[in-house]
C-alpha cells in the first residue's frame, strides 16, 4: 500500500473546499489493523521489540549486497533457516546533535525513542509505549516485557524519563504474570472482571455527560464533532467493556504447562539462552491468547559469559586482542554470533507458532535493536536493526537494506506507520524523519 502523505491529504481536503471535519478522520486512510476483535475479523496485528547487547563486527556482519538474495555473512549465518522471515537493516546513524555520547545508551535510545538522551535514563516515550497506545488498548497487558538479562534495572522501555517500564527477569515470574492466577483463559467457562478496569470504565460516564452538555449549546457542524468525540469515548468504553466481559474462545490459545521451577539465574550464555527460549515461547502464547499486542523481549545487555572464557561479553569487546590473521576479536564474534542465534531461535518460535491458516509471524512485526554499531569502538553510526514478521501483510521480508547513514529513527517511524499510527513524522532534532523504509513495505 502506498502511504498517503499527510500533508498531501490535507492539501487535498483544503483544495476540495468544504472542510467539515478535522484531521482525525484521516484514520479512514488506515486499514483495519489494530482494531480487529474476536468476532471473525482478521487477527490483530502485534508489535514486538527485541534487544541484544554490544552490536556487531561490521566486517563479518554487514552483507555485501542489498535487496533479496543477499549472501549471509559469517555473523548472520545462524539466520539461514529464518532468512525468509526477517529483514537485516544496516548502516543507520543515531544523530546526537549536541547531546553527549553516552556509552551503551545513546544508540538504542535514539532507535527506540527518536530522541538523543542527555543523561543516562533521559529517555522520552519509547516506540513500544507509543504503539501500545494505538493497538494495545483492549488487552490485559498494554505492554508485556521480559528480559533474559538478569537485571531488573535494565530496561529499554520508557513512558518518560521518570517512568521506565521494567521487564520480568525470571521465566517463572513471566509465566506467573501471564498464566498465573490472574489469567482469564479465553477458552475457559468462567470469567471474573477486574475491579480496576471497572473503576476506569465507570469514570468515563462523566465525560460522556459532559459531551451531552456541550452538544446542547453548539451548532450542527460542531455537534458532529462532538458526536465524533462521543464515538471515540464510547470506543474506549467498549474497550474497557471488552476487558470486563468473557473473551471469545481463541483456538490457538493454550495455557502452557506450569513451569515447575525457575530457570537458574546467571549470565552464562547457555543459561541465558535457555531462559530466552522459554520466555520467547511464553511471549508467543501471550500474543496468541491476546493477552498483549505489544511485547518486549531482551536477550542481552552486556554481561553474558562463556564457559571456559574468563571475560564477560562487554569486557571482551574491549580487552580481547584482534586476531591478527582473522582481523576480528574471536570471542567477541562468538558472543555476537550467539546473540544472532538467539534472534534466530526467537524468530523460529514465532514462525513455528501455528494459528489460523498461517503462523504468528504473519501478523506481528518485531524490531530488534542494539546499543552500538561497531562493538569494539562502541560507535553509534553503522547501527544495525533486525526485523521479523509481516505485520498482517504490510511488510515484506527477506531483504537486506543499507540505510546509507540516515537516521535510525526511520526504522521506528516505519514500524509505527505499519502499526497504523497516524504520525506525519517522528524523532527530534536531526533524527526527525518522515521518510519510511520503502524497501521493506509492501
Amino acid at each position, binding site marked *: 500500500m502506498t502511504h498517503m502523505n499527510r500533508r498531501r491529504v490535507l492539501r487535498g481536503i483544503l483544495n476540495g473546499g468544504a472542510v467539515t471535519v478535522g484531521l482525525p478522520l484521516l484514520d479512514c486512510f488506515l486499514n483495519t489493523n489494530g482494531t480487529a476483535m474476536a468476532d471473525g475479523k482478521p487477527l490483530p496485528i502485534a508489535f514486538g521489540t527485541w534487544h541484544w547487547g554490544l552490536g556487531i563486527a561490521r566486517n563479518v556482519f554487514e552483507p555485501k549486497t542489498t535487496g533479496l538474495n543477499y549472501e549471509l555473512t559469517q555473523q548472520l549465518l545462524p539466520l539461514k533457516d529464518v532468512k525468509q522471515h526477517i529483514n537485516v537493516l544496516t548502516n543507520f546513524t543515531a544523530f546526537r546533535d549536541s547531546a553527549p555520547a553516552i556509552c551503551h545508551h545513546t544508540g538504542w535510545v535514539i532507535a527506540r525513542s527518536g530522541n538523543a538522551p542527555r543523561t543516562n535514563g533521559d529517555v522520552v516515550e519509547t516506540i513500544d509505549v507509543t504503539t501500545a497506545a494505538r493497538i494495545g488498548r483492549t488487552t490485559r497487558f498494554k505492554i508485556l516485557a521480559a528480559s533474559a538479562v538478569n537485571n531488573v534495572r535494565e530496561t529499554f522501555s520508557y513512558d518518560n524519563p521518570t517512568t521506565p517500564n521494567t521487564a520480568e527477569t525470571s521465566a517463572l515470574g513471566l509465566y506467573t504474570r501471564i498464566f498465573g492466577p490472574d489469567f482469564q483463559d479465553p477458552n475457559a467457562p468462567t470469567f471474573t472482571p477486574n475491579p480496576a478496569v471497572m473503576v476506569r470504565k465507570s469514570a468515563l460516564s462523566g465525560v460522556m455527560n459532559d459531551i451531552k452538555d456541550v452538544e446542547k449549546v453548539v*451548532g450542527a457542524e460542531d455537534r458532529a464533532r462532538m458526536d465524533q468525540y462521543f464515538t471515540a469515548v464510547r470506543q474506549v468504553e467498549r474497550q474497557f467493556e471488552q476487558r470486563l466481559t468473557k473473551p471469545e474462545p481463541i483456538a490457538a490459545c493454550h495455557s502452557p504447562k506450569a513451569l515447575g521451577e525457575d530457570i537458574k539465574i546467571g549470565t552464562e550464555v547457555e543459561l541465558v539462552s535457555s531462559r530466552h527460549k522459554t520466555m520467547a515461547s511464553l511471549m508467543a502464547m501471550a500474543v496468541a491468547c491476546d493477552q498483549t499486542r505489544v511485547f518486549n523481549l531482551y536477550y542481552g545487555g552486556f554481561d553474558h559469559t562463556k564457559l571456559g572464557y574468563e571475560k564477560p561479553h562487554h569486557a571482551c569487546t574491549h580487552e580481547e586482542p584482534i586476531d591478527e590473521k582473522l582481523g576480528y576479536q574471536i570471542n567477541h564474534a562468538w558472543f555476537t554470533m550467539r546473540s544472532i542465534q538467539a534472534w534466530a531461535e526467537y524468530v523460529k518460535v514465532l514462525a513455528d507458532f501455528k494459528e489460523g491458516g498461517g503462523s504468528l509471524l504473519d501478523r506481528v512485526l518485531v524490531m530488534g535493536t542494539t546499543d552500538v554499531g561497531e562493538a569494539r569502538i562502541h560507535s553509534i553510526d553503522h547501527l544495525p536493526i533486525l526485523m521479523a514478521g509481516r505485520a498482517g501483510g504490510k511488510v515484506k521480508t527477506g531483504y537486506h537494506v543499507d540505510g546509507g547513514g540516515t537516521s535510525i529513527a526511520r526504522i521506528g517511524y516505519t514500524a509505527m506507520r505499519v502499526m497504523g499510527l497516524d504520525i506525519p513524522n517522528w524523532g527530534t532534532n536531526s533524527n526527525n524523519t518522515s521518510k519510511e523504509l520503502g524497501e521493506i513495505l509492501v
Partner: protein
Amino acid sequence: MFRMKEKTSISKRRLTFLRGCAFVALAACAIAACSAPTGVQNDAARVATLQEPDTKGAPTSVRLVTGAQLLNTVAYLFGPDVKTITRFPPMERVEGLLQIGAGRAGINDNYLEIYRKASTDVAALVMDVRRRNFLIGCTPANPNAADNACATQFLSRVGRILFRQPLDKARTDEVVGIANTAADTLGDFYSGLGIALETLLVSPKTLFVVDRAEPDPARPGEQRLDAYSLASRLSFFLWNAAPDDTVLKAAESGEILTPKGRAKIVDMMLASPRLEKGVRAFFDDMLAFDDLEVLAKDPQIYPVFTGNAVGDAREQALRTITELLVTERSDYRDLFTTRKTFVSPALAAVYQMPTNSSWMAYEFPKDSPRIGILTQAAFLAGHSHPGRSSPTLRGKALRELLFCQKVPPPPPNVDFSAVENPDPNIKTARDRLDVHHKNPVCAGCHKITDPLGLALENFDGAGQYRENEKGAPIDATGALDGVPFNDPATLGKVLHDSPALTSCLTRRVLSYATSNANADAEVLKYFNAQFGMHGYRIPDLLRVIALSESFSRVRAPESTTKTADAGALTNAAAK
C-alpha cells in the same frame, strides 16, 4: 509614497521597469486580493479611527485547545514541572492560522488516546508523593479510603479552572463520586483522586472552548459572548491559557461584562508577564513556525545547521519578537529593521560569530548584513530547500505570511529543469530563475515572489552569509511593489514602510482573537488605523481589540440551521 519619491532619484529607469513588471505580474498571476486595506491612507482613514464601525461580530465557534494551551493551564494549576512530553495532534492551518483550524479539529479515538495518555501523566505527577502535599491542599483522614470533603475541595477548585467556569453541584458530586468509588475500590485515596482528575482533563469542557452567546442588553437583537466565554476568549488570546482565578472571578460577578470591569481585567492581563506567552503563541502561529518542526537540511551541505540550530532558530525569532514588542513596547515595523536579538551557541555557528555557552542578548553591529527578523535563520532556512536557498520560497513566504496575500501554486506540467538541474555554467539563483522566467506561464507569479527573495540571496539555504555563489557575486537588488532596494537592509526598510505589513498584522491578530478570518473591511480599516495611532505597538493593538465590540459580539455560524440551534443558544443564554 513620499518615501518612494525619494527613491526614484536612485534609478528612475529601473523603477519604471519594475513598476511595469509588477503590473504584468498582478495581471497574469491574479494574486489574491485579500489585502484589502493595503494602500488605504492614514489621512483618509483618520476620521474612521475614532469609532469602531458597526459590526455583526464573529460567528460562535468551538475550538479544540492546543497542546500548549492545555499545558499552560496545567502549569498554572500545578506548576511548570507538571507537564507531559506528549506530542499533541496537529491542527490544520486555515486562512493562515492554526487557531482557525482549531475551530474545525475534532477528537477521534486515536487522538483521544493521546489526550488520555497526557491526562494519566499529569494525574500521576500531581498525585506523586512529593507533589500532592503541596498541590492538593488537604490531607485525607485515611489515605487508604475515600475522603469526600478533601476530594470535593480539590476537584471543585481544579475543575473550575479546567472547565473555565465553576462546576455545578451535580457535576461536582459526579466527579467526587468517581474519586470516592475508585478510592474505595483501589484502597487508595490518591489513586481515586487521580482517576477523577483524569476524567476532568479529558472532558470536552476542558478540551473544547465553546463560545456561548447571550442577548446583548445594550443592543437588542444582537448577541454577545456570555461572561465565561468572554473570559476564556480573553485569556486564550492574551495568555494562551485558560483564565486564572482573578479573571474567572470577574466573570462570576459579571464585572467582566461592564466596560469598566472589562478594561480593568484586560489591563491586568496585559500587565502580566504571561502576556509574553500569548504574544509568542500568536507569532508562532502567524509565522507558521510549526513548519520548522519538520525542517531538515542536507548535513553535507550545511553541517552547521543541525537539529539544535533549527530549534534555536525558532526560539531566537520568538525571543526577538517578545523582547522588542512586549518588553520594549516598540513599533511592530521595527521588527524588520532591528539589529537586536538573542543568540545561542548553535546559532552563533550559523552566524559565524563568538558566543557564550548559553543564550545571550546580542546586537548585530551597524555594518552587519543581519538586520530585521527576515535575516534570521528561522525565516531564511525555514523558507529554503534542504540544500540551497530559494528566492521563490522566501518571496512567497513574505507575501503570504507578512502581507496576507495568496500566491497560487505552480500550474501543472511545468518544466523545472532550469532550477532543479541547472546548467552548471549558471552560477547564481538570480540567473537560474531568469532562465525559468523565460517560460511565460511561470514568469507571472515569480515576478511577485522572486524579487523579494532575491534581496536575501546573500544568505544561503541555512541562513549563513555569503557574498558569492559559486564564485559569482550576488546581486541583491530588487523591488517591492515598485519600491526598489539593493540589500537586506534596504529591503527591511522598504518592508517597514509598506502599509501591507501593518494591515496584514491587524488582520491576523483579529482573526486569531476571534477565530474568524472574515471580518468586515471597515472593521479592519478601523483597527488598522488604531494600530497606527498607537504607534504600531502590539500590546496597544491587543488592548484595542480585546476591548472592542468585534471581540465580544457574536452571531450564529452561517451554516447553522435556525431551529433547534437557535433554541439551544437561547436556552444557554437564559441560564
